[in-house]
């Protein structure tokens, strides 16, 4: 009897009502596995899915379109070579990709020693900002959610996070830049990121990060 069989495999029953895969997450994991198996179309698919968001991030960090394109190329070639290192038990594909891209972007920024750029002037002039509807992986809802959470942070915490994440400054450099004690900057950074996590808690799962 089939039901007896199911009953005897009782560990299966809790799964029966939770059947729909999370498309984005599982697709990304499958793509990374295929890339690790040296599948070119899978890399093309991953690039098409994430090029907007990663290029937007790199433009924000480097404020230079050519440099950002060069780093974007490096990032995806690294994905090609290192996809087998991705371990889904240690984090999401999105986190892995973003951490890789940002790390490469910050390395390039530090090499170029171009931190004295004018933050306000650049990105909008050199880039073609696209509509959110065109970004498959990241809808405007996600940007809205994180932007709103960031806006809720006290100004000094927000500024510390932005200087570290997008401008690649270390805590000591931020302290010098703001004329604040190093201990204060460390506290602001830690508290700011904790607050951001709390504001995003329970929402990140549905938005893929």
């Amino acid at each position, binding site marked *: 009897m*089939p039901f007896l*069989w199911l009953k005897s*495999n009782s560990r*299966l029953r809790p*799964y*029966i009502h*939770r*059947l*729909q*895969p999370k498309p984005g997450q*599982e*697709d990304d*994991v*499958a793509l990374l596995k295929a890339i690790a198996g*040296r599948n*070119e*179309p*899978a*890399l*093309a*698919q991953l*690039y*098409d899915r994430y090029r*907007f*968001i990663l*290029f*937007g*991030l790199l*433009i*924000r960090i480097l404020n230079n379109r050519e440099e950002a*394109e060069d780093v974007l*190329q490096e990032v*995806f*070639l690294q994905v*090609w070579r290192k996809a087998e290192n991705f371990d889904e038990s240690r*984090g999401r594909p999105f986190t892995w990709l973003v951490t890789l891209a940002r*790390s490469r972007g910050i390395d390039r920024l530090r090499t170029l020693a171009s931190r004295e750029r004018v933050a306000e002037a650049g*990105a909008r002039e050199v*880039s073609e*900002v696209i509509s*959110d509807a065109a970004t498959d992986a*990241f809808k405007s809802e996600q*940007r809205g959610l*994180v932007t709103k*959470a*960031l806006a809720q942070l006290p100004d000094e915490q927000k500024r510390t*996070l932005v200087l*570290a*994440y*997008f401008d690649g400054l270390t*805590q*000591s450099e931020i302290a010098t830049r703001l004329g604040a004690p190093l201990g204060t900057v*460390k506290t602001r950074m*830690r508290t700011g*990121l*904790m607050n*951001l*996590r709390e504001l*995003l808690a329970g929402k990140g799962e549905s938005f893929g*990060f």
Partner: protein
Amino acid sequence: MVHEDYKEMIPARALSALDAAEERALNEHLDNCSECRKELEEWQATAAALAVVPAPVEPSPAVRERILSEVRKDLSTAEVIPFSSRTRNVWRSFGSLGAIAAVVLFAALIISLIVLWQQNRTMKEDLAQSKEFVELVTTPGAKVSELKGIDLGAGATATLAYDKTGHAMLMADKLPNVPQGKAYQLWFIVKDKAPMPGKTFVPDNIGKGTLKDQMPAEAFGSAIFAITVEPAAGVDAPTGPIYLRSSDVN
């Protein structure tokens, strides 16, 4: 420094904002502390959320071309299998011992060529299946489900993908060998219904197995998947133990 000191540094490490000496010290600690490594992963996930704040920007199409061109170069280098078919003129030094040595060498060369040919054929088949699988996965509306080995199948893994038409493909790895006359069989399980049988397959000698099947309409979007060991011809209702089942997806 003690564990708690390092722990306090982790959010800044997730933002790459530590000074070089602090980062070196923390990295050494991370090598030996799984708790802190786990915590770093969590903070990195929070920090990564900030990546969606800048406006998305379209890179030049040339970037895609450059990336794929590099990848193709890499693939073409990797696909060249060096056959060392040296044609030494051993017959010229014909003597009884030389002839025996030549026959042995010739036999060894033939055997190695056959082995290389078989390896090459297997690689090509694997590549073709892998490509087909990715095409299926990347079809709009395609679904993917991971299966994990349990009990007798512990350590085995499989991925099942299917598109809107029900065309399904399973790729399994690290499967235990099946006894003579037996095979693995796929099952589609829907609540309050009898398990629906899929096709059977036998893995190769390193435990890899592939299966193409048509998913029953009732199983669309509401099935879990299981793999049992059954008679090679397949059965209508499962009789053997479950070796793999779909993972918890929620």
